[in-house]
């Protein structure tokens, strides 16, 4: 096992009041006992707003001093000003908000190389190469104050990648860009990263960005890392109700195991409704159930329902309809609230409307069960 490129141990951080005084006990706290990043690895640090992602990223990047704990890069401590400077000259950091120097686009991209005392002729070649990769070669002589949002994001990416860093920190690098522009830049970024053996840590609240740029996911909630794993782990098997809510599992239900037999358990969800799930659980154990909306099948005829092998057949009434990009969210009352995603065609063929009675089919194995620690 080779040593990781970046390590953080026993990090504790408490946000201080910006005015210099220390705030009371209810301020934001962050605590991470261990975090590692190996050479060339891509990690997406995800979590809801205010979960401490940016703060943790800044601590890892040596831009925020934790109250306790240490950051180790390539077996070297990152603590003193000199150590930090040496560290910063091997990494690149892209902040969340636009940060462009009041000079030309060329100089904005060249600044890191100038700070690192790279030879002038080499700076020219490298900056021009980086600008080309992001399709902004034509803007080199333009003032950085007079470019569009998409161009500004490209300048910031080019400024980081021209350094050929060993480790790249990105804090919401696409900001508020609209989808097509983001798509273009993602492609350019992939091109610029190809051939660089550079570890990446990206902070984002956008699932798509995380999936595109992260091989491994780290989920942060309330200042703590609550789950680490692949995209499949996080999206299909969220470790807590918060992670489930964050990854977009619409149906997070609290229940109590009432009986179990043959690898299956019956879970009571409030009054009168229950679900059969895979796995055996102790009677009376409190469980959180995640029902992926896309795994729920709606039918209008009971006969049709019986023909399918699903173990849970629920009768429900439509209480809400909400359009989204690929169809509709149908809210169903089955004794507990259930959200189902339905295509536009299915809406009309099933005759879905408010008040309609439908059958919902859920495979026992499709339900992800989170056992509570206590």
């Amino acid at each position, binding site marked *: 096992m080779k040593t990781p490129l970046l390590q953080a141990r026993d990090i504790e951080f408490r946000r201080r009041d910006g005015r210099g005084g220390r705030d009371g006990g209810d301020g934001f706290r962050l605590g991470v006992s261990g975090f590692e990043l190996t050479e060339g690895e891509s990690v997406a640090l995800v979590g809801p707003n205010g979960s401490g992602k940016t703060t943790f990223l800044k601590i890892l990047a040596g831009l925020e001093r934790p109250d306790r704990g240490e950051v180790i890069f390539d077996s070297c401590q990152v603590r003193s000003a000199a150590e930090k400077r040496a560290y910063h000259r091997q990494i690149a*950091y892209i902040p969340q908000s636009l940060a462009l120097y009041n000079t030309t686009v060329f100089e904005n991209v060249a600044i890191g190389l100038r*700070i690192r005392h790279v030879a002038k002729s080499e700076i020219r070649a490298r900056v021009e190469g980086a600008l080309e990769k992001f399709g902004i070669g034509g803007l080199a002589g333009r*003032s950085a104050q007079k470019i569009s949002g998409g161009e500004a994001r490209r300048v910031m990416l080019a400024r980081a990648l021209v*350094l050929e860093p060993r480790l790249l920190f990105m804090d919401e690098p696409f900001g508020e860009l609209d989808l097509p522009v983001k798509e273009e830049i993602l492609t350019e970024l992939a091109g610029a990263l190809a051939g660089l053996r550079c570890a990446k840590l990206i902070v984002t609240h956008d699932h798509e960005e995380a999936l595109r740029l992260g091989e491994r996911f780290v989920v942060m909630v309330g200042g703590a890392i609550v789950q680490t794993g692949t995209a499949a782990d996080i999206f299909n098997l969220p470790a807590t109700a918060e992670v489930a809510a964050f990854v977009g599992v619409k149906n997070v239900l609290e229940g109590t195991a009432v009986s179990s037999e043959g690898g299956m358990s019956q879970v009571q969800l409030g009054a009168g409704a229950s679900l059969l799930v895979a796995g055996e659980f102790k009677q009376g154990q409190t469980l959180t159930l995640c029902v992926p909306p896309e795994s729920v099948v709606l039918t209008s005829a009971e006969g049709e329902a019986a023909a399918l092998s699903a173990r849970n057949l629920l009768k429900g009434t439509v209480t809400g309809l909400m359009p989204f990009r690929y169809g509709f969210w149908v809210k169903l009352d089955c004794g507990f609230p259930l959200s189902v995603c339905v295509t536009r065609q299915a809406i009309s063929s099933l005759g879905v409307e408010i008040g309609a009675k439908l059958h919902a089919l859920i495979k026992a194995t499709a339900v992800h069960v989170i056992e509570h620690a206590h």
Partner: protein
Amino acid sequence: METLLNSLREAAQLVVACDPELLQILWASLRVSGMALFVVTLVGLPLGAAIALSRFPGRRLVIALLNTGMGLPPVLVGLVVCMFLWRSGPLGFLELLYTPAAMVIAQIIIAFPIVTALSVAAIQRVDPNLLLQTQALGASRWQTFKIAVRECRIGLLAGIMAAFGGIISEVGAVMMVGGNIKGQTRVLTTGIVLETRMGNFEVALALGLVLLMLSFSVNLALTVMQQGRGTR
């Protein structure tokens, strides 16, 4: 009214003719205020940047004192400098009183808080995100300082312009510590006072015109520097 017009006409003639005495006084003014401004910029600007970029106990008190210092009455500065430079004063052995050097010292004291306080204000307005980005790029203190100065050059030049305007037109301090000696410590402002008292309104006005033109050309040069690069 006629006196005014006549004086103006004669003043203009003196200026156009480049009267040697006038040139000599102009040169003395430029030398004293230019020297003071040079020293103040060299010290005050980096000091202002250091105060703006660092955190230390009593920092706010220092900023408040500097802001107060921007309004120092020149006459008071002149008096205190005089008391230090008198033969019996603590710095009397230097024998600087009634020399251009004494005037430079007084003007440094007047201009220093202006340049320093306005530098603090200008550098504090640099986007903190940009400073964070600069730090993340691995910049040393000196590199950070250069980058911060470039970012707020407009504000910094405004401070230098304000200081120049303050000392070139100031009369109280230079009068007290310089003594208005003809050919040595007579500057435009003290010259105006003297000529006015002697009833030579046209000479006083001519000196005033030169003062205005000097102020204008220096500020024009600084403004071109400021705006020209800022809006490229």
